[in-house]
């Protein structure tokens, strides 16, 4: 019976890399283009998930579980980041009634 990793390996590795790269790029562009803090944050999460996908693919290809363990790390720490990040966004919203990062330019570059 075919197992999951052989199914994963049925698709060339480059496709995973390409897909991850595309997702990652979408995330990066999202961060750079969007002005809403939440959406920026979601774009960041998208970047992280692109990494997760890539790690899982590599892990499966090399028959090494550590890549998947790393995915766990990323998920756990991303959760912590989500908690803190949302708290910060809420805090900002409560003070400014906006989460548009354009109003956050009191401190100039």
């Amino acid at each position: 019976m075919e197992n999951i990793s052989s199914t994963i390996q049925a698709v060339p590795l480059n496709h995973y890399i390409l897909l991850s790269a595309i997702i990652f790029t979408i995330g990066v562009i999202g961060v750079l283009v969007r002005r809403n803090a939440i959406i920026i944050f979601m774009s960041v999460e998208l970047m992280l998930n692109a990494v997760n996908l890539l790690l899982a693919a590599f892990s499966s290809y090399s028959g090494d579980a550590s890549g998947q363990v790393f995915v766990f790390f990323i998920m756990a720490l991303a959760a912590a980041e989500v908690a803190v990040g949302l708290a910060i966004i809420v805090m900002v919203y409560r003070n400014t009634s906006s989460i548009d990062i354009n109003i956050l330019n009191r401190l100039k570059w």
Partner: protein
Amino acid sequence: MSTLIVISILAIIVLYLGLFKAKQALLPVSVLGLVAALALAIMEWNSNAAPIFSGMMHFDNFAVAFSSICIITTILVFLLSKNYFEKISENVAEYYTLILFALSGIIVMVSYHNLSMLFVGLEIMSVSLYILAGIKRKDFASNEAALKYFLMGAFSTGFLLFGIALIYGASKSFDLAVIAQYVIDHPTGIDPIFYVGLVLMIVGLCFKVGAAPFHFWTPDVYEGAPTLITAFMSTVVKIAGFAAFLRLFSICFAPLQDFWMPTLLVITILTLFVGNITALYQTNFKRMLAFSSISHAGYMLFAIVALGAASTNAIFIYAAAYAVSSITAFAVLMLVKAKTGGENFEDFNGLAKSNPFLAFTLTVAMLSFAGIPLTAGFIGKFFVFNVALTQYHTWLVAIAVVNAIIGVFYYFKVIVAMYFKDNQTKQIATPAYFNFVLGVSLIITLVLGIYPGFITNLF
């Protein structure tokens, strides 16, 4: 490794002390705990430690040295924090805890032997700092600092992770030793994704250490965050960032120097100029320190660009010098701000008359920043230049020299304000803790500047 455990447990103890309303005990417990952790760290010196926790971490001399300097700096920050946090928020214990958690992340960052630990340490540190940057909940600047720091931090983490993933894809391991072996074993046929991963990691790490052109969050965050947190961020955090950076590159990527060196070279030069030239135009002392921290990041990057046997030593000395001087600068800034309510250079006017000791320590700190002999900063710069010249980066050093000259302008601004401008300000009351910290920093700066033999032979 007991250091890490002690600090983690200490953080929890402090948190619970806060729960049980033992506010008076917070500071002593934190400081004593850190001293214990420091002692434990130093005891592992030269113990030829092998990687532990299944190769996750490696508490070698490098780790011991950088842990120690981070712990010492944190102790100094803590000593300054008496009565500081009480003023800005009611949740005092949490701040001690968060700083300690950040420190435990930092210990991981300086002693990792596996990329996953690099990531974990970095995140423990960053997440704590996101909160710390925003601890003044009602203060808009603090809010903004927190949000910016958070978004930029998360963004850069993304790059770092993608880099790690690609490197993993090529080398099939997160273990530094295995990656290093991979690089050595494949002198020609290294997978292209490895290079891409390397570049992405450089981007991620440069974000974290605030190197141009990824520096733009730094000044805002440093200015917006409470001063003491800024002090912590610009010293301990930055040092840890560089330690992690250096550890990775010296263990894994040294043979690929031809590939990454030009990239890093450009970043270094850019960082130097951006940091220095923008610092020149600042009227706010805190913001000036932020930009100056960017430029110091540039100097420290030097030692990585010219990666060699002496790099570690150079960065260590530079970091130590930079840390104590920064602590002094921020301590004085806090006192001055408490008195005058401002952070601009004018607020320092006449400080030499009203408070000679403060002025003197700040002067020494600024001289150290500027790299004038007999201060630790000079020794740091000297070692960094030495490393860079070893690799025949003569032009790079010439550029650095030009930047050091620019640096003199803005570091002397505050000296000029303190000594040569008058202002009828009354004496600033300096609490004993401050005097202690300032005194210690002063002594360290001068001792390292006059007789650096203690730490020049560590590695």
